[in-house]
């Protein structure tokens, strides 16, 4: 078997085990669903509060912002389903030396570490988020063209790629800062800012979110595609940003892995 195919076979086996394990805990599903609905309600109330005092946020109307909020929640669902239980566990593995067991496997380590676990119940967050985005889209009264739908699909994929690249980057730092357990809190903190269109922030913050910590590309751009704010040039840029982010994070991962000398080193 060739490398990538072997990796897929291994992963599928892991996901099946995950799935069966998780099915035993249906109470968790209800709890996580209630939690998601509660936080979505809080987020929508926050937006409603802003709109009590303004007719638009950075040029976005109320339902446009809710479309963005749905996309935000879907992306957060991807994080909770795959990234946090998978690559989010890396710092612990580095500290304990458990990463040895990963490195000796005949699969690509980054790929394996990233996608080894699925918190299947959290997939509901993705579904709920996309459903909210769809509902809000209908409320805007717009009609979507095939091109816009395609642009949304592409930019949403870019968003996932950028979020993934940010996680790989942060977690790779664990090889240098072994004692830092809460690297993922850094992501949580900064990603919060992606709840609102990037145009709603003052200049300095906007610069930060577009160029330095590229979260503007994660929610604002896909939501722009759905609300008629995306031009082809920007879509091309988004794709370029996605590819660049993936490439850069892969490079950092390689460099970081060279430093790894197991727990005793």
């Amino acid at each position, binding site marked *: 078997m060739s490398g990538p195919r072997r990796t897929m076979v291994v992963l599928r086996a892991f996901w099946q085990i995950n799935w069966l394990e998780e099915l035993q805990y249906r109470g968790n599903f209800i*709890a996580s669903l*209630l*939690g998601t609905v*509660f*936080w979505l309600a*809080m987020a929508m*109330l*926050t937006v409603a*509060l*802003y709109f*009590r*005092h*303004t007719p638009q*946020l*950075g040029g976005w109307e109320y339902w446009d912002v809710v479309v963005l909020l749905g996309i935000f929640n879907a992306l957060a669902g991807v994080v909770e389903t795959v990234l946090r239980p998978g690559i989010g566990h890396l710092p612990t593995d580095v500290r304990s030396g458990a990463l040895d067991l990963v490195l000796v496997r005949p699969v690509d380590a980054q790929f394996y570490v990233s996608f080894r676990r699925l918190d299947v119940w959290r997939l509901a967050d993705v579904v709920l988020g996309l459903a909210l985005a769809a509902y809000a889209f209908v409320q805007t009264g717009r009609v979507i063209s095939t091109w816009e739908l395609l642009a949304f699909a592409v930019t949403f994929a870019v968003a996932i790629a950028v979020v993934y690249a940010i996680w790989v980057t942060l977690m790779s730092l664990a090889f240098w*800062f*072994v*004692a*830092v*357990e*809460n*690297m993922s*809190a*850094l992501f*949580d*903190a*900064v990603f*919060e*800012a992606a*709840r*609102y269109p990037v145009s*709603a*922030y*003052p200049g300095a*913050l906007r610069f930060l979110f577009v160029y330095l910590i590229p979260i503007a590309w994660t929610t604002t751009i896909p939501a722009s595609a759905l609300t008629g704010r995306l031009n082809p040039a920007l879509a091309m840029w988004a794709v370029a940003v996605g590819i660049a982010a993936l490439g850069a994070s892969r490079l950092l991962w390689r460099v970081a892995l060279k430093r790894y000398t197991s727990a005793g080193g």
Partner: protein
Amino acid sequence: MRSAFLIDLQYRASIAIWLVWGITEPIISLGIWWSIAAGGAVDGYTREAFARYFFGVALVNQATLSWDAWNIDRWIRGGEMNYRLTRPIAPIHEAVADNIAYKAPTAAIILAAWFVAAIFWPAVRIPFEPGRWTLAIIAIVLAAAIRFLNGYASGLLAFWTTRATALVELQFGLSLFLSGRIAPLSLLPPRVAHFAEYLWFPYVVSFPVEILTGAVTTRSQYARGFAWQIVWLVIWLLLYMLVWSRGRRHYGAVGG
């Protein structure tokens, strides 16, 4: 020497990350209100007033934050509570020490950052009034005590249920609005703001912040705020004692 320094640096990095996590929420809120107030004051809040308010929120929130419920939940479920129970003093003493050891330096960092910001950015300067600042410190200490007991007592419900932290998250979510973390209370719908006055939420963030920014002025506003703080402090203290004594017995019954 070098390695000791590096290890130290790593733990500091860890604390720095929690600090960043704590201040992004007020920064985001400030960013949004800043844009909204571009066209003029929002219900009396100018851009500068928002800036002062959210600097205050960052400071007070850091000084009063409570995370103990998550620790307790982990201890009870993982069995670490057992050896804590064998000690001659209740585990809450350890938690109080932890809280002071963490909050004093991190709040000092925010205060220092505020001071530096005020040098370059006149908008966030607040008038130096020793009396007002002293009252603000007292209000912050009371607020920290209320939030601590509230979180601790809620966390102890883990003696009975595996979802005690969900209750804490619920309160955390409500406090976004009712404590004034997202917006000054006067910008909430009046009925919501009025309802909040009877709960502890406004007195753990909003009240100390508004002393600092100067929104609390009259003697009766001070009296009301401090009176409610004391009422809720006593209520949460009693609830803590109740949950602690009942829970400990319940825990023994399960394990025994």
